[in-house]
């Protein structure tokens, strides 16, 4: 295909589609959003946090002189994949966690039910325009109900004593929609492969273009084991897939949002270490924590206290 063909094809597509109305941000909003961004960047701009220059020196293989956008593909190609995997200790721990997760009983779920997850979460609150004045808020309860089979069904989030309907953000859904790897329903998770390498491959294909690959894979799996319910065999496969991610390590002692101690599987990116915390005894998932290694401060944590299936959004199990 040459450039003329491309132009012809694009022209035909433009003709087939309605003209999209393009315009500026509403009056005033450009300024508001810009000011917000500038203020957030000042909060984020701490000299101690890993500066880009320092990171690049540590990883010279990533510095490749190519056109900017091409760098995206090159970085993906250069990051280690699959071959090395997690640290030996993390592999051993994740194997045990996977075995425990796989041994859980299988729930019997009807399509019209909702998954229910209750957790305690705490975020970092920063005052004013400086990153030096940040504190962790007191943990608060967060409850979420989601349809087990269809993202088009409205769910519910109850947090800060406030109910918010939970509706999927895309208007392009073909209903019923079982979700995807980023926003799955239980039924979607049931259909995932249980071979860890196949599962990681699927996750990586879905996040095409996200950077960098190991961090996104760890984050994606973290979302699936945190605030979602997966069948035992899929949970086990997710942990075994995490063991294939380079850079995953073990943190011997970690504490979740309600003070439960455990052992953690961790991944560090740009001086922030994200931990998935598990009970040392039962190897059950307890919660997660994120630590800024530059300051040693915790900047986010959670503790899952209940997972169940219920008949209505808003209904408590029991």
């Amino acid at each position: 295909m040459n450039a003329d063909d491309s132009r012809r094809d694009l022209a035909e597509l433009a003709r087939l589609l309605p003209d999209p109305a393009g315009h500026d941000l509403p009056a005033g909003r450009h300024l508001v959003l810009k000011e917000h961004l500038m203020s957030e960047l000042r909060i984020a701009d701490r000299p101690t946090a890993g500066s880009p220059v320092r990171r690049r020196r540590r990883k010279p293989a990533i510095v490749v002189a190519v056109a900017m956008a091409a760098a995206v593909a090159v970085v993906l190609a250069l990051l280690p994949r699959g071959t090395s995997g997690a640290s030996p200790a993390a592999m051993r721990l994740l194997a045990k966690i996977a075995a425990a997760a796989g041994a859980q009983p299988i729930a019997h779920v009807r399509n019209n039910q909702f998954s229910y997850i209750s957790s305690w979460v705490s975020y970092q609150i920063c005052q004013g325009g400086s990153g030096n004045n940040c504190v962790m808020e007191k943990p608060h309860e967060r409850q979420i109900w989601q349809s087990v089979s269809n993202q088009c069904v409205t769910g519910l989030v109850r947090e800060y004593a406030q109910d918010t309907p939970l509706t999927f953000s895309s208007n392009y859904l073909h209903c019923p929609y079982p979700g995807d790897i980023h926003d799955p329903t239980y039924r979607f998770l049931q259909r995932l492969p249980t071979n860890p390498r196949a599962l990681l491959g699927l996750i990586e294909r879905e996040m095409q273009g996200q950077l960098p690959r190991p961090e996104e894979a760890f984050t994606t799996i973290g979302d699936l084991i945190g605030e979602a319910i997966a069948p035992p065999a899929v949970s086990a496969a997710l942990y075994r897939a995490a063991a294939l991610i380079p850079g995953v390590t073990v943190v011997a002692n970690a504490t979740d949002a309600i003070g439960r101690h455990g052992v953690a599987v961790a991944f560090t990116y740009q001086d922030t270490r994200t931990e998935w915390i598990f009970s040392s005894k039962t190897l059950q998932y307890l919660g997660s924590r994120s630590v800024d290694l530059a300051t040693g401060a915790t900047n986010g944590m959670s503790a899952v206290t209940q997972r169940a299936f219920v008949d209505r959004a808003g209904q408590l199990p029991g």
Partner: protein
Amino acid sequence: MEPNLRAGIRAGDPDAFGLLFDEHARAVYNLGFRLTANWSAAEDVVSLTFLEAWRLRARIDPAGESLRPWLLGIAVNVCRNLARASRRHQAAMSRIPPPPVVPDFADELAGRLDDTAALQLVTEALGALRRGEREIIALCVWSDLDYATAAQALGVPVGTVRSRLSRARRRLRTLVPADREPAHGREQVPGNRANAARPSWEKER
């Protein structure tokens, strides 16, 4: 783009990001609007895209052309998973002042209603396509990226861009007559109208 602005963005100079915002916020806003079909979501896409750009700034090459394709690639990823992007920047997003309840000018409101009708047509047509096809259309047809640049922005092979565009073209041809006029397009497109018109909340989690 001036090399020193680019260097400033790589080095994390907030003022350089301010200039980047002024230059490209509109393009990101329009892309977000077309991919989510939602006004307020498009505003969130703008904020999240620039927060993500800040996070990923070390990966910009020191030399190169406009940063617009890079930003649009980030915006596509943000749209794919607004929930996760919002969660990643949860604290920052909670600090955005809410938009005024009453629009500043009646003219603006009227313009918005027209745009909403136009968007409905776009939504119905795009609703017939797969997500990957919509993204490529938004980048190549409406944001004027060439195939190679769109491929780089999304991190996919250029062959993927071509095959998605030709699939989208075949699909749209079956839905829209060759001589369609925009005013009559609506009857020709079997979109899911109830869904397209459905109020769309941000998914908060």
